[in-house]
């Protein structure tokens, strides 16, 4: 696509014509519109097609639970480290689960080195809200001794390749890493927490939620799983989070208005997507079982 030949750049006899790549750079919105009119997206997908998603569990051995998720080119690695800390005075029976997203400059030329960008902080906060409001994990199971000691799970998500729809990738990475966590057995004795060498305890997840994101183009075309280019051109985005029973857990809607019909299609597509992700993670679990 990137070959620009001299005779194609300017043809003086007729109207000015451009090579597709030039057109994309000058008029990205119009470029996308031309594709949408043909009912296809610039990367060849149909509107309802998710990119290929893969999950790789236990990829970081220094972490207590880890997962690498790829959606198309978008790649997110989640590593969970467990530490012992004193519980919050107001919730003496509860541990902590702290998600943190890092959009480092490695993942896209858009991100600059320095303190976490607004986008990264919004992603972290959205994940935190999702975990809390949907009660993904019972924080009381992380308690070691009431008021004295509890587990703190630091879930660090590093985006290594940013090609749109990072939130979906983060949710899948976080959920699958939580499933992958193995904690040692810990006992509280006279102010000291003793933990066994072996890590055997699996976290009990109450609810497993996955998200599906959509981009809306020109207020009528719903593009599933938008990539970086589509995300940057379209102003409207919808993210729907559902749990295993198909119940809604969260909806984020940004940009201008959309009809309730469109929202309904989003929800039903999110439910279909849930089943797909479940089977992808099942495959990943089988893969590590074989190695073990």
């Amino acid at each position, binding site marked *: 696509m990137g070959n620009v030949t001299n005779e194609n750049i300017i043809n003086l006899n007729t109207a000015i014509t451009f090579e597709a790549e030039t057109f994309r750079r000058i008029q990205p919105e119009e470029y996308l519109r031309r594709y949408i009119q043909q009912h296809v997206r610039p990367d060849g997908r149909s509107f309802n097609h998710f990119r290929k998603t893969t999950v790789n569990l236990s990829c970081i*051995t*220094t972490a207590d639970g880890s997962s690498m998720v790829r959606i198309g080119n978008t*790649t997110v690695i989640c590593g969970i480290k467990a530490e012992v800390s004193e519980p919050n005075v107001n919730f003496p029976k509860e541990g902590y689960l702290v998600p943190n997203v890092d959009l480092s400059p*490695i993942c896209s030329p858009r991100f600059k*080195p320095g303190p976490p960008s607004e986008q990264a902080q919004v992603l972290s906060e959205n994940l935190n809200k999702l975990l809390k409001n949907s009660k993904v994990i019972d924080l009381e199971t992380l308690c070691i001794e009431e008021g004295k000691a509890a587990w703190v799970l*630091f879930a660090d998500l590093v985006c*290594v390749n940013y*090609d749109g729809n990072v939130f979906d990738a983060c949710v899948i990475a976080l959920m699958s890493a939580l499933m992958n966590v193995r904690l040692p057995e810990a006992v509280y004795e006279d102010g000291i927490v003793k933990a066994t060498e072996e890590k055997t305890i699996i976290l009990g997840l109450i609810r497993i939620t996955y998200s599906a994101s959509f981009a809306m183009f020109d207020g009528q075309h719903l593009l599933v799983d938008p990539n970086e280019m589509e995300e940057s051109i379209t102003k409207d985005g919808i993210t729907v989070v559902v749990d295993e029973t198909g119940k809604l857990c969260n909806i984020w809607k940004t940009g201008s208005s959309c009809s309730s019909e469109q929202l309904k299609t989003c929800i039903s597509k999110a439910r279909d997507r849930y089943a797909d992700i479940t089977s992808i993670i099942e495959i990943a679990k089988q893969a590590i079982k074989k190695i073990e």
Partner: protein
Amino acid sequence: MSSRLELIGPQGLRTDGRRFNELRNMNCKPSVLSQADGSAYIEQGNTKCLAAVYGPREARTKAQVLHNRANINVEISLAPFSMEERKKRSKSDKRILEIASAVKQTFEPIIMTELYARSQIDIYLQILQFDGGTVQICINAATLAIIDAGIPMKDYVCACSAGCIDDEPVLDLNHLEESNTPELTVALLPKNDKITLLQMESRLHIDKFQQVMEMAAKGCKEIHTVLDKAVRENIKDLLKKSSI
């Protein structure tokens, strides 16, 4: 508890089962990221590193512009889950800054920066899992990523560490070994055997120095063959794809 850690077992094997002159298992792959101009992923034993190169591109601030050559910017970040102990290491951590500066100084004379005056080359390194040998893996990953980005370099830069356990020189130390023994990191230009970087931060007897150094240089050569193979295979793949 024994007062001293046994780093070499009775059969003369090290804690991870290697012999004295054996490198850790090395996996590398260039062109792993779609957004970067050049990228590479390297595993050396349990140390895993991802490198991305952006550029040559416009410098971010005017102060960084050099009128006669490109400015090289190296940033290293350690993933919070990369170490045994979770520590939020900021990018301004002095130890990391020092490594970044060592990498930068290694590449400055090797990359032909004079071809890209007034521009900037960014090298971002992300350590995903840490088990010793940060400097060497950063240099090796950066070499692959720079080649992948198509930025002209005078030669490969290959780095390797070596140390001395019980008067015996050993190659490619892991984290357990490097915290207990003197370590020497060497970066070499394999074509003319010139050393571009040499780091040693603890005491080592001068009689042993030559041996350890030679061992590290040998390790660099081995790493060079692995990197070179990866680059050639990657180019072959590229040719196959473009010919279709």
